[in-house]
């Protein structure tokens, strides 16, 4: 979205292709406390809404559509979508990530029936009951804390014996009276009743080898993210894990193609780092279009097309 904002302000003819709705993972975030400029924090939805309005104020066109692949035709890049194809000089890939599946029995079958990847969406369905959260990173810990508003007890399962989450979150979660942390423990199965509603989990202690069962009604999985890059296969060589390698200017190995945000190979995936990537990518895309094709601050209708896939 930031790439779109910068590209629109640069007066490039910019289109943001969006599969579902702008915002992605931020939309499922209840409260954002680490994006600067919001001293009280801001809801994920409101932050996305503000970013979208800001970009649209400068003329960013947001188009709903699913990009299926990219290809090259001389100096043009073709963005193939399910219903049409866009010919453009530059593409910024900002497709982000989606939650990783744990891959245990019951997970896919009972998604929406007790298995969830979004505490903000589904937490209120679990008032007064016990739930399980799986994971040890920032998201898992934040969501476990959020769920204490509704659930009578939150069981946090982590396969290691220490959390990866940042200090302030670690403190909060280890001292919270409603949260019990099950260290070095993984879930092996999710059980449901005859209405297919989740009723419990089987867990395995990796150190002792002991298994046990726990009667929970909700299982929230935050075991990592995987990049949305299958549409790049055959066009761009992907890094291990499917991420997109770039240089410090967000350029990929394909001329005219940049990447920004969580989809990139990098250490810290946050809204603020994604926004920084987006600005850098759009700036470099503008310079590339200007020097390579001689378009320069042309009116929007005749400007060089640039696409942002999100």
């Amino acid at each position: 979205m930031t790439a779109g904002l910068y590209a629109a302000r640069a007066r490039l003819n910019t289109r943001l292709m969006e599969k579902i709705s702008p915002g992605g993972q931020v939309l499922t975030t209840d409260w954002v406390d680490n994006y600067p400029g919001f001293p009280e924090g801001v809801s994920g939805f409101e932050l996305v809404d503000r970013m979208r309005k800001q970009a649209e104020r400068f003329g960013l066109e947001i188009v709903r559509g699913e990009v299926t692949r990219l290809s090259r035709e001389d100096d043009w890049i073709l963005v193939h979508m399910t219903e049409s194809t866009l010919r453009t000089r530059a593409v910024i890939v900002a497709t982000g990530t989606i939650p990783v599946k744990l891959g245990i029995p019951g997970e896919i079958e009972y998604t929406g029936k007790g298995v969830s990847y979004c505490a903000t969406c589904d937490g209120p369905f679990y008032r007064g009951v016990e739930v399980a959260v799986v994971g040890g990173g920032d998201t898992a810990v934040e969501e476990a804390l959020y769920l204490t508003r509704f659930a009578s007890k939150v069981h946090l399962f982590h396969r290691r014996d220490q959390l990866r989450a940042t200090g302030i979150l670690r403190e909060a979660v280890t001292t919270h009276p409603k949260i019990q942390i099950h260290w070095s423990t993984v879930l092996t199965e999710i059980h449901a009743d005859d209405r297919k509603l989740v009723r419990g989990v089987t867990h395995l202690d990796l150190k002792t080898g002991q298994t046990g069962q726990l009667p929970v009604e909700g299982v929230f999985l935050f075991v990592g993210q995987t990049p949305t890059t299958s549409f790049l296969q055959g066009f761009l060589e992907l890094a291990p894990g499917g991420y997109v390698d770039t240089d410090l200017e967000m350029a990929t190995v394909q001329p005219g193609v940049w990447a920004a945000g969580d989809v990139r190979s990098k250490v810290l995936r946050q809204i603020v780092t994604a926004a920084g990537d987006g600005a850098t990518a759009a700036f470099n895309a503008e310079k590339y279009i200007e020097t390579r094709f001689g378009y320069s601050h042309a009116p929007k209708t005749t400007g060089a097309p640039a696409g942002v896939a999100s």
Partner: protein
Amino acid sequence: MAGDNVLHVSDAEFDEMVLKSDIPVLVDFWAAWCGPCQAIAPTVEELAGEFVGRIRVAKMNVDENPKTPGKYGIRAIPTLIVFKGGQVAEQITGAVAKSQIVGALDKVL
């Protein structure tokens, strides 16, 4: 406005407006606090326009109407259910691409 084609249905009206409908009904179970629900709302409105006369499109606020979501075991939103002849014909959980919803609607037609 496509939004004009979307009904807002309550627990009390559910039987009459959804289960007894003569054409299939897509019900979008949503709540104000759910970001992904806001994300798919425009898609649902578009579909209401595109399928007008063939599929009725309704939204149910799960905060104001706890009975129906409870009955259908809904524990995640957004959940989209297509009812046909009073039965659950298709169910989709989470914000998904429009093409996936269209696929589910085409199946029941």
